[in-house]
């Protein structure tokens, strides 16, 4: 089981993961809170939500988060997949979830998630991580907070250099 790291108020902390990730080749859906694939959510999401559980949706790198737009208020977690660290579509997906679709729930990075990517992920609006490299919450806090400035506006709402300079 990967350790879950959550980003809250400018620092990372280790967290319990109440969700079970259900892959498509698994037959049944276990009880409790689950993260299921986008196609499965479209088939069974209604029923699962009706049972009163929290439901998360796993969105693959090439899938469009816009397909979830109308369901987002009912979704607790959107888990965006990095099949390899260099497959960076999820940075756009996270940005769109936060900036365009107004998603307020958890955006989780899953797959080939490395601490070298942490600062980019946090900036794009990810707030939960399943690191694949065994890195700890303390290490995530360290790498994300290393840079005192940023040059662009992004989903994290940090003040970019051009605003700092105006102050």
């Amino acid at each position, binding site marked *: 089981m990967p350790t879950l790291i959550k980003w809250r108020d400018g620092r990372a902390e280790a967290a319990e993961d109440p969700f079970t990730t259900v892959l498509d080749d698994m037959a049944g859906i276990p009880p409790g809170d689950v993260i299921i694939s986008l196609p499965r959510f479209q088939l069974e999401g209604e029923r699962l939500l009706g049972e009163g559980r929290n439901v998360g949706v796993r969105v693959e790198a090439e899938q*469009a988060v816009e397909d979830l737009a109308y369901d987002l208020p009912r979704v607790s977690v959107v888990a965006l997949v990095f099949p390899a*660290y*260099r*497959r*960076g*579509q999820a*940075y*756009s*997906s996270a*940005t769109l979830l936060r900036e*365009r679709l107004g998603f307020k729930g958890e955006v989780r990075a899953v797959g080939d998630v*490395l601490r*070298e*990517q942490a*600062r*980019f*992920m946090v*900036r*794009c609006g990810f707030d939960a991580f399943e690191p694949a*490299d065994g890195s700890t919450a303390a290490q995530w806090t360290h*790498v994300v907070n*290393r*840079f*005192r*400035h*940023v*040059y*662009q*506006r*992004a989903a994290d709402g940090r003040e970019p*250099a*051009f605003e*700092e*300079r*105006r102050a």
Partner: protein
Amino acid sequence: MYRYDAIDAEMLADRVGEFREQAARRLAGEITEDQFKPIRLMNGLYLQLHAYMLRIAIPYGSLNPTQLRKLAEIGRLYDKGYGHLTTRTNIQFHWIKLRDAADILQHLASVDMHAIQTSGNCIRNVTADPYAGAAADELDDPRVWSEAIRQWSTFHPEFSFLPRKFKIAVNAAVVDRVATRTHDIGLYLRRGEDGSLGFEVYVGGGLGRTPYIGPLIRQHLPAARLFSYLQAILRVYNRHGKRDNPNKARIKILVATLGAEEFTRQVEAEWEKIGPAGDLPDTELARIRGAFTPVAFETLPARSAAFDEARTKNPAFARFARNNLRPHKKSGYAIVELALKAIGETPGDITAEQMEAVADIAERWGLSDIRVTHEQNLVLPHVKLDDLPQMHAALAQTGLASPNSNLISDIIACPGLDYCALANARAINIAQDIAETFGDPDRAETIGELKIKISGCINACGHHHVGHIGILGVDKKGEEFYQLTLGGSAAEDAEVGKILGPALPGPKVASAIDQLVEVYLRERNDGERFLDTYRRVGLTPFKEAVYADAH
């Protein structure tokens, strides 16, 4: 020169700290070379045939003497006393030890330089006209826009893991000296019919395995909307670019697959949604413009007696003046090309001593401004005509007065198999052979402008596709062969060259070039460059000359 403020400086300091820790993890054996690879590639550090190679960014090719002296110091301390200028206007040191890399970055940061995003699948060093701020045909200073793009693209959270590398060029003059349309995004600054400043936006140019000249996707983008538009292009690419095959992952393939029209539609739709929130405030653009040191030009007459006299009395100076000077926007000044193409030398190589000499010369006579060109040369953009004779003498002393700018021996060549793990064949020796074949400066001048570009493999770092004569190294059963192309151009009349015929063995290349040149000299009309004659008469006479023996 853009002057860093505290924010820019702290950004570099933080990056040095980050890299120092990452390198320490590798040196301590906490991570393997495989795990370290993505980390070092975020930072211009390549593992090559013999050692690590560090690629240092020279944003839009602009340097001051302090920076050049620092590069000389690094070359001496950590390399073998020289560096290599690349076609992306970067400088590479090929003999670097990993344990020194963080210290080198610290040295660089002390003079506002870095190696950020000089490799990896991210937005690379922005290139611009090397004559910026000096060219008589300039509409606006492209460095202001380039610096704004540099900042915007530095550690861009959404666009640091693109399908493939991404290169942007800015041209703001009539003549294109940046090979703008061979870039992933090429920007031409233009005035619209109403007089407003805007960009012509070209997307999906590129060389490599499948060369394309980028199609125009927007005729007039209001200048103030540049950054939201860049964001829209990059987002469409990041989401939809191919990632399964690195040879098909550049944006040019996406544009070609969708068609320019459909690609444009998707970009425009995304741009609508992003809106002006994605733009940089005018105040920041104004701040960047103001952070460029104003150049203290004097008011001078258009003619200089000292210059005219030296031209009459000193044939070597006269030749240099004929070939290496370009018109300046201010009367009494010239733009000076320093061709790093002495006959028999490696194109783009520059020794630590030469760097220091150029720094001194730029300080004394060049208003402390130095540029690197994508043709692997240096430019001193602001020199008084009065000072040129003295400056020429100083250049000649350090072997930097090659009077062959734009001539046949002013060759672009990638490092090739001598250094690069990707290469199929050597490039440097071919460049040297050709330069020696055309070593007679009178003959070189008779031939006139002729751009030869050599790549040691299909990745085309030597831009062979857009050479008037392009040369591509290929491997045939372990032997080095070279495929020739004719008629390419990287300028405003951009075009991809056509293959002349079967590849030739290395020792035959220089003599084949000689045969091509003879055809040109025979066929040319008054005032025609090699490229013009080729365009008029076509491939056939050239082909016949080179392959006559085979019939």
